[in-house]
């Protein structure tokens, strides 16, 4: 069997396969070429069909709504860009933007680092590995509602377990919910608890698809475990890490279930909006105040901001490693 490796990407086929008569391109070979060209589109078609019907239409319609004054249950009234003017002159919006960033950092960075470390540990030969992996994913199997309900009790001021433990060490009870940073930390803990095991499993799957030869080569070069982790595992995981960073960034930017339920279903995000994320701010406009036009405006601004963020992310990633295959295009 011959192998040509100089053209690594499949899918582009102008020429027929080796067999057959090369002088006269048969209908078969043309069909084959056609299949090669059209298959990618057929493969992505189901996704885009679903997306057009249930993703794109709502998205475009949302843009349209954002140009109207539209109360849920009322009629739409055209007001041009008034909603955008309202939004950009509203201190509450900037507050929510800022809180989204701080809670995003507080929850995403420890979460991914913890997940990476856990995946590394889980990658050892372990007794009861299945049990451990199942346990790691249990939080993910829990609904946000249940998790938040439990954590709201755990972080209670008067009878919460956290304050109970702090009391053992001699620290005064903390009013987690009503403090500025304390509330953000409590919410971040919920997010971290919920997602760390999930990310660890994804890292683990990635780690196990890194070629063993690389480790052995590194070991021969005298690299210790830590150096192997740094120089083999991390680069090998690059696409996976990119994936988790982007998904977590998007997740963090849309964070709303946890702060909403931590606030007992109230979208205020605390007495001074100390944990009102943009998602919560939008939810408040749309579902508490029934201002769908304004909510749509927040959604679109948020949408554009996240696209910018992701582009920036991938641009940075590409600039760092220009040759790496598999970073975001």
């Amino acid at each position, binding site marked *: 069997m011959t192998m040509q490796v100089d053209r690594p990407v499949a899918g582009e086929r102008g020429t027929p396969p080796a067999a057959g008569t090369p002088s006269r391109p048969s209908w078969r070979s043309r069909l084959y070429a056609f299949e090669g060209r059209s298959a990618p589109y057929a493969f992505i078609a189901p996704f885009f069909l679903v997306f057009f019907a249930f993703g794109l239409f709502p998205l475009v319609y949302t843009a349209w709504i954002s140009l109207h004054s539209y109360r849920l249950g009322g009629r739409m009234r055209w007001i041009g860009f008034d909603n955008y003017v309202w939004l950009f002159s509203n201190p509450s919006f900037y507050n929510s933007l800022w809180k989204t960033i701080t809670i995003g950092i507080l929850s995403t960075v420890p979460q991914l680092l913890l997940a990476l470390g856990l995946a590394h*540990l889980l990658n050892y030969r372990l007794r009861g590995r299945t049990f451990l992996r199942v346990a790691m994913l249990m939080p993910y199997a829990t609904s946000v509602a249940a998790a938040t309900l439990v954590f709201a009790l755990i972080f209670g001021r008067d009878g919460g377990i956290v304050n109970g433990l702090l009391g053992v060490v001699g620290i005064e009870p903390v009013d987690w919910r009503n403090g500025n940073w304390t509330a953000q930390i409590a919410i971040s803990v919920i997010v971290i608890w919920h997602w760390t095991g999930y990310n660890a499993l994804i890292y683990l799957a990635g780690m196990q698809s890194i070629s063993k030869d690389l480790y052995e080569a590194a070991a021969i070069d005298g690299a210790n475990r830590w150096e192997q982790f740094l120089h083999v595992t991390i680069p090998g995981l690059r696409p996976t890490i990119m*994936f988790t960073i982007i998904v977590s960034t998007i997740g963090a930017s849309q964070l709303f279930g946890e702060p909403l339920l931590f606030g007992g279903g109230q979208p205020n995000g605390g007495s001074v909006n100390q944990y009102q994320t943009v998602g919560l701010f939008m939810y408040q406009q749309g579902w508490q105040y029934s201002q769908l036009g304004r909510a749509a405006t927040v959604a679109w601004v948020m949408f554009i901001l996240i696209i910018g963020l*992701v582009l920036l992310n991938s641009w940075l990633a590409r600039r760092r490693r220009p040759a790496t295959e598999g970073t975001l295009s």
Partner: protein
Amino acid sequence: MTTVDVHHISASLAPPSPKRGRGRPQDAAGWLTYGILTVTTLLFVAPFYYMIVAASRPMSEMNTFPPPLVPGGDLFSNIGTAIHQQNIGLALWNSLVVSTVVTVSTVLFCTLAGFAFGKLRFRGRNLLFAITLGTMMIPPSLSVVPLYSVMAELGLAGTLSSVILPSLCAAFGVFFMRQYLIQALPDELLEAARVDGATTLRTFWSIVLPIARPGAAVLGMLTFMTAWNDFFWPIITLNSSNPTVQVALNNLGSGYVPDTAVIMAGTLIGTLPVLVVFVLLGRQIVGGIMAGAVKG
């Protein structure tokens, strides 16, 4: 035209010795590793324990200070109350239907699209992929109003189809499978298949799918749980006479006095099936990951 034996190709491309697979050579874990993992596991599981405590006592006992830390004796009566209040049986069945269909279709469609985006070259790929990523950024809580109009227009509002259809293939899954396949699928395999004249679909079926299996298993599990726990849209479109588990849980508790114990008991029975499935299949999934890792 030559007959193509893709199995043969993939077998010939596999690493020389089945023992020399992928993943770091597995050292046995030391006591420190076990220690850290045990503590982490306890932290991860503790809230579940607390959920059981809260579900097994009358609400007023959970409201005392200091709160109790061991389960009480009301677990079954609270579960009974929850089941009596809401149609949990139907809800479990509905959730099973929704989650299963969504999982099967997501895994299939997302692997197809992820393969195309990750490994095939075609005009407009980058643009289309950027759009795919863009769809992840649509805040789900907003598009429900237009989405409901679409469903009402199709006559599907209130049906399980209205929950299933928008989730048939998520951008997240496409992205996930793309990243997985970029990493796990060697270009040489595809090239060899191409040289042998396999069609793209044939290649997908015989080469990509087997290699994608570990990633697809993870995606499937994650999708199942996400679909099971999804509540924002189902609450809008479904009603309490034909609920999913999350819709039913949302309606638990009675009157102006939401009964925390009953809500917790309901949450427990709503979460248990996923955990059971997960514990049962977890072995398979982990096995799948290992098998995939060895086979390459």
